[in-house]
């Protein structure tokens, strides 16, 4: 095999290990990537993450269930643990800071965790407040860490209103212009995001990362 086709084979193996829900295989493949001098950043982006989005796809198609997604993200994390320390320093620039959490009253956090993992994988500094997070904690944390984006998740129609509350609290504290607010979770829509005055919505985790990137690259809401 030529060098590039070997490297390509390693990337495929990284993706396959995640789809196969095999932690040990992901770790082996990550070591192999390093041995074959695959750029670790590429190994993450074009290997592990490709696997994770394929697992997400299989979930959509009902081939995979929620447990599979959890095990797939274990495999992703395991591979990440090997590759992360080898990313060149100039690649480690933090593209932005995100405060993320599941809104008050809701403890569904599988989707939020996936969004966090993808954001971390893409290099963002992510502050995860967990689940059942009251509006004031989002706001306080965002101020404390100087976040660019506040990312709100919920899976329940009963708790969607607490996204609205969080946006309102930002306005009330005269902070609305300092942060971009994005929302997600299966009962949500772009229309709902617009209605509550959020800055963005995405239906999945990969889309969430693209969205955050776009929002951070745009001029910040106000120069601080």
């Amino acid at each position: 095999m030529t060098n590039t086709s070997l490297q390509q084979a390693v990337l495929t193996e990284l993706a396959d290990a995640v789809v196969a829900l095999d932690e040990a295989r992901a770790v082996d493949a990550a070591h192999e990537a390093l041995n074959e001098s695959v750029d670790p950043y590429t190994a993450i982006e074009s290997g592990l993450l490709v696997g994770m989005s394929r697992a997400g796809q299989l979930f959509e198609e009902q081939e995979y269930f929620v447990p599979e997604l959890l095990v797939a993200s274990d495999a992703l994390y395991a591979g990440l643990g090997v590759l992360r320390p080898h990313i060149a320093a100039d690649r480690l620039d933090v593209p932005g800071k995100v405060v993320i959490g599941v809104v008050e009253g809701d403890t569904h956090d599988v989707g939020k965790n996936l969004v966090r993992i993808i954001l971390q994988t893409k290099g963002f500094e992510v502050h995860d407040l967990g689940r059942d997070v009251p509006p004031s904690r989002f706001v306080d944390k965002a101020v404390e860490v100087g976040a660019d984006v506040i990312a709100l998740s919920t899976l329940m129609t009963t708790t969607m209103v607490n996204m609205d509350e969080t946006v309102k609290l930002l306005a009330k504290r005269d902070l609305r212009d300092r942060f971009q607010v994005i929302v997600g979770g299966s009962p949500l829509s772009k229309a709902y995001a617009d209605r509550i005055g959020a800055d963005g919505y995405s239906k999945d985790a990969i889309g969430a990362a693209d969205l955050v990137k776009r929002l951070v690259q745009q001029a910040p809401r106000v120069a601080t």
Partner: protein
Amino acid sequence: MSTLVLACEVVREELLRIRSAAPVSFAFLSMGLHVAPDRLRAAIAAELERPREVDRIVLGFGLCGNAIAGVRSPHAPLIIPRVHDCIPLLAGAPPPPGAGPLHERGTFYLSGGWMEGERTLYSEHRRSVARFGEQKALRVLSTMLGGYHRFLFIRTDHPRRELRERDAGQLAAWVGLPLDTVDGSRTYLEALVNGPWDAARFVHVARGVPVSPEAFTRTTSVPCRAACPP
């Protein structure tokens, strides 16, 4: 006046045990659909599109993750319990007006239907034991239940209630959480089958009109207007 009750399997056994003087027919959809609101919406819409000779269709579903948002019933008016999911239906108490239908945090609700249905916490755990082995499956289950401090089994007149309560006890033991029980009440499901479909507890949607999710978040003390049945 004839009624079709189109419901989720999770309340099947309870509904079939409710007596009715008027003609009522039942149709049930798999509980497995609750994991994918878009698919549930499509399945409900397909049922509603089938031509039927009924005067009204009552849904045995809540808003269910916006699964019923936007569905239309072309042949008969729709009546839908004003709930976000099946838990208040099983418990028998509609959410207190104004308070919002919030669940108790950290409580995972069980019932006979929740133990027997497809793609529930219990069935998925058993499947994942087969796939990943006991140890990994248990870790997955504990991750899913990380935010929970107890199970609450709602006792209804489900015919296999005792058996399912024992299964629930086993589920609880696996993850080391307590299992509490509470008596459900038939009142909500009885009203679902036989009426009165009062506006406090039920949303009324005319033929061909899409279901609006806002109707479920509004406070419930709206007087019964034109759309209500005689």
